[in-house]
C-alpha cells in the first residue's frame, strides 16, 4: 500500500519536474521510488489496508505479483535513459505515466473488490493508450494507440458488464466468498469477466489488438506492455480465480482449455508466417499467454508459484528480446528479420543474449522457459488434460521454428560494420540473461524465495 503511495507521489513529482528546470533528477528519482516501493512491498506491512475497508490487500500471492512487477520495472527502467534523446518534457511525461501504470498494475494484482479491480485496470490501460501513441508524428504509432484505445475500452466495458452481472448475481462487489453462486447469472458473469481478462492478457480469440499494437508502439514501451501489463493482467486473473476457486463450476476448465487451444493454434500459426520480429514476438506472446493460462486452471494458493515462475521467466525473456529489437531498430531503422542479419558479427553481445532469451522462450532445458513450461504442462496433465498437453507440445515445435528463424538471421554471415551499445545497457542485458539461466538451472530458488 505504501508502495502505491510512494509511486503515485513520485510520478506526480516527476511530472512537475518536467516543467521545472531540475531535469537530471527524473530518472534517479523514479529509480529510487521503484526500489523504495519494492522494499516496502518486501517488508509488506499491511498497515493501510483496513483504512481502505479491505479493498486492497497485498498478501501472499498478490504480494509476490506486486514484487515481481516492481522487480521487472527496475529491470526495464535503465533503458528509459534512451528517452532523453526525445527531449525532457516527454521524458518526464513518459516516466510519470509509466510509474502511474505500475501503480495501476499493483492495484490490479492486489484487489479485493471489483471496484479496485476496475480502477486498476483503467489506470493501467489509459496509461498504455498514451504510451502506444507516444510517437505523435508516426502514423503507425497513432494507429496503434487508436486500436488499443478503442478495443481496450471496449474490453473494459465488457469486463464492467461482467462485473455488474456478478454484482447482480452475488449482491456484493467483493470477490471474497461470494453468495448465491449457483445461479446461472453468476456463471454467465464469470464467462464475461474471463473474456475481459483474456482480452487484457491477449488470449485468443481476444488477441487481435496485440500484434498491431506491438508493431506500432515505440519498442521501449512495448517492453512495458509485454511485461508489466501481462503480469498485472494475469495477476488480476489469478486473484479472481483464487478467490472463486472453491465455487468455480466445472465447465470453466473446459472453457480455459478451449482458450488455451485457440491461443496455441492462432498464435503459432500467425507467428509462423511473420517477417517483422515485433509481430513474431507479439503472436508468440499469445502462445505464451496460453501456456500461462495452463497455470491458472484449478489454481490454488499452493501452486500459484508455478504461475509466478512462468510470468518471471516470460517477463525476463521478453525484456531482453524487445530491448534488443529496440537497439536493432535504432541501427537499421526497421524490425524486419533482414535487419537482424549478421548481428552476431556486428554486435555479438546482443546476439548472444537475444539467442538465449529466445531459447528460453522456446523452452530449452537449463533456461527458465523450460522449467516454467514443465510446471504448467505437468499441472494440466495432472488434471487430465493430457491430450491438450500433447497438442501444446507439438505446436511448440512450430514456435521453435519461428524463434530459431530469428537466431538464424542473427547468425547469418552477412556481418557488416560493428556497432555497439552503451556498456551499461549490455551489462543489464547480460545480467538479465544470467538470471534467466540461473532460474533454469536452480528452479527451486524462486519458489523458496517466495516461501
Amino acid at each position, binding site marked *: 500500500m505504501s508502495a502505491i503511495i510512494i509511486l503515485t507521489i513520485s510520478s506526480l513529482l516527476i511530472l512537475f519536474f518536467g516543467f521545472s528546470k531540475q531535469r537530471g533528477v527524473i530518472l534517479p528519482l523514479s529509480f529510487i521510488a521503484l526500489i523504495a516501493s519494492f522494499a516496502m512491498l518486501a517488508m509488506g506491512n499491511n498497515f493501510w489496508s483496513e483504512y481502505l475497508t479491505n479493498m486492497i490487500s497485498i498478501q501472499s500471492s498478490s504480494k509476490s505479483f506486486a514484487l515481481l512487477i516492481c522487480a521487472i520495472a527496475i529491470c526495464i527502467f535503465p533503458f528509459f535513459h534512451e528517452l532523453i534523446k526525445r527531449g525532457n518534457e516527454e521524458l518526464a511525461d513518459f516516466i510519470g505515466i509509466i510509474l502511474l501504470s505500475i501503480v495501476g498494475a499493483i492495484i490490479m494484482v492486489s484487489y479485493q473488490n471489483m471496484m479496485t479491480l476496475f480502477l486498476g485496470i483503467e489506470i493501467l490501460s489509459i496509461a498504455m493508450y498514451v504510451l502506444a501513441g507516444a510517437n505523435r508524428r508516426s502514423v503507425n504509432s497513432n494507429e496503434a494507440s487508436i486500436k488499443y484505445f478503442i*478495443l481496450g475500452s471496449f474490453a473494459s466495458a465488457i469486463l464492467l458488464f461482467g462485473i455488474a452481472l456478478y454484482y447482480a448475481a452475488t449482491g456484493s462487489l467483493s470477490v471474497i466468498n461470494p453468495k448465491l453462486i449457483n445461479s446461472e447469472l453468476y*456463471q454467465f458473469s464469470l464467462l464475461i469477466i474471463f473474456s475481459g481478462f483474456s482480452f487484457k492478457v491477449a488470449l*485468443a*480469440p481476444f488477441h487481435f489488438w496485440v500484434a498491431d499494437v506491438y508493431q506500432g508502439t515505440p519498442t521501449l514501451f512495448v517492453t512495458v506492455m509485454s511485461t508489466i501489463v501481462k503480469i498485472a493482467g494475469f495477476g488480476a486473473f489469478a486473484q479472481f480465480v483464487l478467490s472463486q476457486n472453491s465455487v468455480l463450476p466445472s465447465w470453466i476448465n473446459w472453457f480455459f482449455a478451449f482458450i488455451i487451444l485457440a491461443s496455441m493454434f492462432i498464435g503459432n*500459426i*500467425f507467428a*509462423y508466417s511473420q517477417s517483422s520480429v515485433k509481430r513474431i514476438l507479439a503472436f508468440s506472446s499469445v502462445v505464451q499467454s496460453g501456456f500461462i493460462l495452463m497455470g491458472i486452471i484449478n489454481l490454488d494458493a499452493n501452486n500459484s508459484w508455478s504461475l509466478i515462475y512462468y510470468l518471471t521467466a516470460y517477463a525476463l525473456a521478453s525484456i531482453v528480446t524487445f530491448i534488443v529489437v529496440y537497439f536493432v531498430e535504432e541501427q537499421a531503422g526497421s524490425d524486419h528479420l533482414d535487419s537482424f542479419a549478421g548481428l552476431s558479427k556486428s554486435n555479438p553481445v546482443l546476439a548472444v543474449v537475444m539467442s538465449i532469451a529466445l531459447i528460453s522462450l522456446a523452452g530449452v532445458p537449463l533456461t527458465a522457459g523450460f522449467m516454467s513450461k514443465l510446471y504448467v504442462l505437468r499441472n494440466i496433465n495432472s488434471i487430465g488434460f493430457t491430450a491438450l498437453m500433447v497438442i501444446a507440445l507439438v505446436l511448440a515445435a512450430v514456435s521453435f521454428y519461428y524463434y530459431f528463424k530469428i537466431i538464424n538471421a542473427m547468425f547469418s554471415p552477412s556481418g557488416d560494420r560493428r556497432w555497439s551499445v552503451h556498456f551499461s545497457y549490455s551489462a543489464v542485458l547480460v545480467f538479465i540473461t544470467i538470471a534467466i539461466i540461473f532460474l533454469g538451472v536452480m528452479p527451486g530458488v524462486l519458489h523458496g524465495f517466495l516461501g
Partner: protein
Amino acid sequence: MNSTIILNLMLWPSLIGFIINGIFGSRMSKNLVGLIACAGPLTSFVATVIAFFSFRDTSTIVDLYTWFQFTKNIYVGFTFNIDNLSMLMMFIVSGVGTLIHIYSIGYMHEDKGFWRFMAYLNLFLFSMIILVLANNLPLLFAGWEGVGLCSFLLIGFWFSNDEYNAAAKKAFVMNRIGDLGFILAVFLIAKTYDTLDFKLLTQKFLESGLNTPVNIWITILLFVGVTGKSAQLPLFTWLPDAMAGPTPVSALIHAATMVTAGVYLVARMFAIFDMTPFTQQIIVYIGLATAFIAATIALKQNDIKKVLAYSTVSQLGYMVVALGCGAYITAIFHVMTHAFFKALLFLSAGSVIHGLGGEQNIANMGGLKSKMKWTHLVFLIGTLAIVGFPPLAGFFSKDEILAVAFSKNIPVFIGLGLCSVFTAWYMFRLYFSTFQGEYRGDHHKWDHAHESPMIMLFPLFVLAILSIIGGFFGMPEVISEHHAIDSFLKPSIFSKNVFHVSHTFDYMLWTLTVLVLALVMYLTYKRYTAKSKSAYDAQSEGIGKVLSNKYWLDEIYELIIIKPLRILSDWFNRVFERVGIDDVIQSPGFVLQRAAKGLGILQSGSISYYILSMIIGFIIFFLMFIKK
C-alpha cells in the same frame, strides 16, 4: 611334442610373414621378401608333418583363448582341432601353398607390387589354415570370409585395371551371398543344438538322427554357403572372372585350396548331411548340373586360363556329386588329387603365359613344345591326370566318384560319364592347340618365347610327381585291399554309407575310359593341330553359340537381379526419397503455411472486424456455456 606349440607353428607363421612383408615389404629386397613369404607355409608344412607323426588318428583340441562367450552354453573360442581330416587338408594347403609361393617368386619377380603380392598370399594361407583347423563354426566362418577377402585382394591385385576390380568385387559379393546362407545355418544350429563345436555337434547329430525340417533347412543353408565358396550353380560365375588375378593366385586359391573349402565343410558336417536325404538329392543334382554346364562351356573357351577355370568348376561338380551321394571321403580324395593336377596345370599354363609375355589366347599358340619342353612335359602329365588316364592321380579319384554315382543313381552316373568325355575333349584341345601343331600367333612373341626359370619349374616337377603318384593313396579294392585315404579319414568321417560295385563294373569302366580317351585324343589331334584359327572362332549359331556365350548366365543374372535393384535404387534416389518420404513427413508444415496464409485475413487490420471476431468467439463460448 606339446600340441599347443605345434598348433601355433601351424597357425601363425603365415600371419607373421604377412605382417612383416605388409609393413616393411616395400623397403626390403625382393629375395628377402620371397624368403620370408615362403618361410611361413613351409613352417606350417613341417609342423603338420610333425603333427602327423605325433597325433595321428586322434583328435587333438587346442583352445588358445576365448573369442567370445556367445550364449550361456555356447562357448566360441579360438579353438582348433587337429584330426586326420584337418591334417590332410593342412598337407594340401601348406604343401601346395609352399610350392606356389616358391613359384610366385619367379612369376611375380618383375612386378612392382611383389611384396604386396607375397603378403596377400601369406594372409590367404593364414585364413585358409584357420578355416581348416577351426573347431567351431564361427571360427571356421572367420577363415571362410578371410579367404574370400584375400581372393578379393588377389583377383584385383593389378588394381589400376577396372575390369579386374569388378571381377574381384563380383567374387567377394557372390561369396557373401553364400556366406549369408552359411551364417543363417549357424544360427539355426545354435538355436536347435545349443552348441557350435564340431565335436559336440557331430555327437548330437548322431544321437538325434532325424530328418526334421529344421535339419533340412540347416543343410540347405549350409549348402548355399558351399555353392558360393565352391562355385556351384547358381553362384559359380565369379570363378571364371576370377582368372583376372595373377596365375599363381588362380592355381592356389581358385583351383587347389579355397574353392575346396565348401567340400571340406560338408565333410566336416557329414553327420547332419547324412540324415537329410532330401538335401542330398538337391546336392547331387546341383553338382551334376554344375559339372555338365561348366564342362560344356569349357569346350568353347579360347583363353587358356578360362578353360582351366571351367574345368575346375566341373571338377568341383564331381566332388559335390560325391558329397551328395554321401561319399565324403571320396570327395576329399578328389580334392587332394585335383589340388595336385589342377595346380600343376595352372602353374604350367602360367609358365606358358610367362614365356609368351602374357599371351593367353590359345588361338595364338601352338607348337610350343619345342620352345618349352619341360613345361610341355608337365602340362601333358597334368592333362593325362585330369582326364583320368590310368594310372595317374585323376584316374583313381574320378573312377571312385563314378563308381559311387553308379551304385547310388544310374542317370547321374551317365551324366558324369558324359562330363568326363567333355573333360577329355577340352583338355586335349587345350594341350594340342598349345603345344602341338604349328605356332599361330605373331612371330615377335614366338622369338621371345622361352622356358621359365628353375625356380618356377621346380614346383612344377614336384606337382607333376604328385599328380602321377597321388592316386595310389586310394586304390580301389579291385587292385588292393588297402585304401589309404579311406582308412586315414575314417576316424574323422565315420559315416555309415557303403558303396559297393562289382569288379566287372570296374574293369568295364576302365576299358571304356581308355577307349574313349584314345578316340578323343585322336579327334582333337586332327582338329586342333591345324594351322588355321577357324577352329577357334566363336560360332554364331546353334549350340556353339550358346556355349561360347556361357549360356548367357551373367546376362541373365544382370537382367533379373542387378538391373531391377539398380532401377529401384535409382527410383528411390530420384523420386521416392523426395516425394514419397520427405514431402509426406513435411506435409504438416505445408498445411501450416496454407493455414497461415488463409487465416491472414482474420488479422485484417480493421477494428470493426476485430470486434466482430471477438464477438463471434465470445458467442462460441456462450454456446458452450449453454450446452455445458
